[in-house]
């Protein structure tokens, strides 16, 4: 299995106290895949059921954020490749 990758960025990196700060995380893993499995049941006469789909995630990833100043970062968005976190300066 391959290791995940992570990249974190903030722009700007200087804030006034009380300002909103945004942290952007780009992440991934070569093994990480999101699959959709679609099942259709057919009988001997060729009757087919309606297709049923399920999503399976191979090698799921978790993203955690730690701040050595004790600030709490909350997740604003996450599409599986880019996550954005927010905290108050």
């Amino acid at each position, binding site marked *: 299995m391959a*290791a995940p*990758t*992570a990249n974190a960025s903030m722009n700007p990196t200087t804030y*006034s106290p009380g300002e909103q700060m945004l942290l952007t995380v780009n992440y991934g893993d070569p093994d990480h895949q999101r699959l959709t499995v679609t099942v259709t049941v057919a009988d001997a006469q060729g009757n087919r059921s309606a297709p049923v789909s399920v999503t399976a995630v191979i090698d799921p990833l978790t993203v955690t954020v730690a701040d050595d100043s004790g600030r709490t*970062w909350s997740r604003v968005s996450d599409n599986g490749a880019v996550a954005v976190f927010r905290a108050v*300066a």
Partner: protein
Amino acid sequence: MPRVTVTVRDSASRTASASVAYTVLPPVLGGYYLSGGADPTADMAGGNFRSLTQYRSFADGYTFPGYQRPWLITLGRAGVQLNMVLELKHYGAPDTGPQTFTVDGVRYTVPAPAMTIQQRPGAVWPKAYGYGQVLAGQCDGLFARALSQYLTMGFGVNIQLASELDTDHEFGTTEAGKAYTWAESDARAVQAVTYIVNWFRAKGLPQGSTFSVGVGGFNRDCFRRTHPEALMTRLDYLQWNVYATSPSHTALERFRRTKDWAVADLGPVALSRPVLIAEWGVRVIEFPDQAAWIATVPPAIARLNAERGPLIARTNYFNSGWGTLSPKATGLAALRAAYARPPYG
């Protein structure tokens, strides 16, 4: 510098980490000045006022805390950061003759001020101790008197030498019958300010004592001339004043103007110094809704401090002259609201 670390973990507990360091600036100190150097305690009560400007003439016998101003000691001990503007300018009363006085057992005689400043045509030109007089050591007694009183205060202050050198020199100066141009006056002032700062720094000063040179900041050439690197190595702050006196004036533009000149024209030592706005104000004639203009100041300061260049550290509202708050209660409420927001925090 705080650091945030991101960890990505897969199902086999393999991890990848990345971190970013960021800076949270210290809060900007919101400050005040009340007309006539009057006691501002009541106006500041209940608001996030942490900075104060005061004006004294070296000619006056009571520099620190000032004549009948015990409240200044109370505010200083409560942590309000004081910007004491000490001027060679003579305020004119009761007389402008020579002075003889004793400081800590030493007798000093200081001659009459020999310079005129603010030589606006048609105006009465104020007298001031001359830059030549300072360099000749004739004003040392004035400095000794101020220092002796300062040492009784029990805390450090910023000493801003001159209120606005550009205002003082705009129409030239005259000392002992000799006229000097604006540029010549600036050069002489730099020498005199250097002398005074060196004089004070050679003494034992309270912890937290800092120095700056006073300018209005309305003239780029003067600002550059009065901030040479050699002087800036002896100073702790940059300083300029900010006023809105035209309907087109925005807070961002007015606070930015002198900063932009500083960034373009000054050296690395000067630009390493934080900025003390000794006076800012919005004139009610052009802005009947002063509160609305005041509300735009916090985001303007935050934006400027996020940009390259020196950080604005203190902003003292000048409730007098151009900045007079009218109605006062509305203006004070606006100031309180502004100083409760970032970047004042």
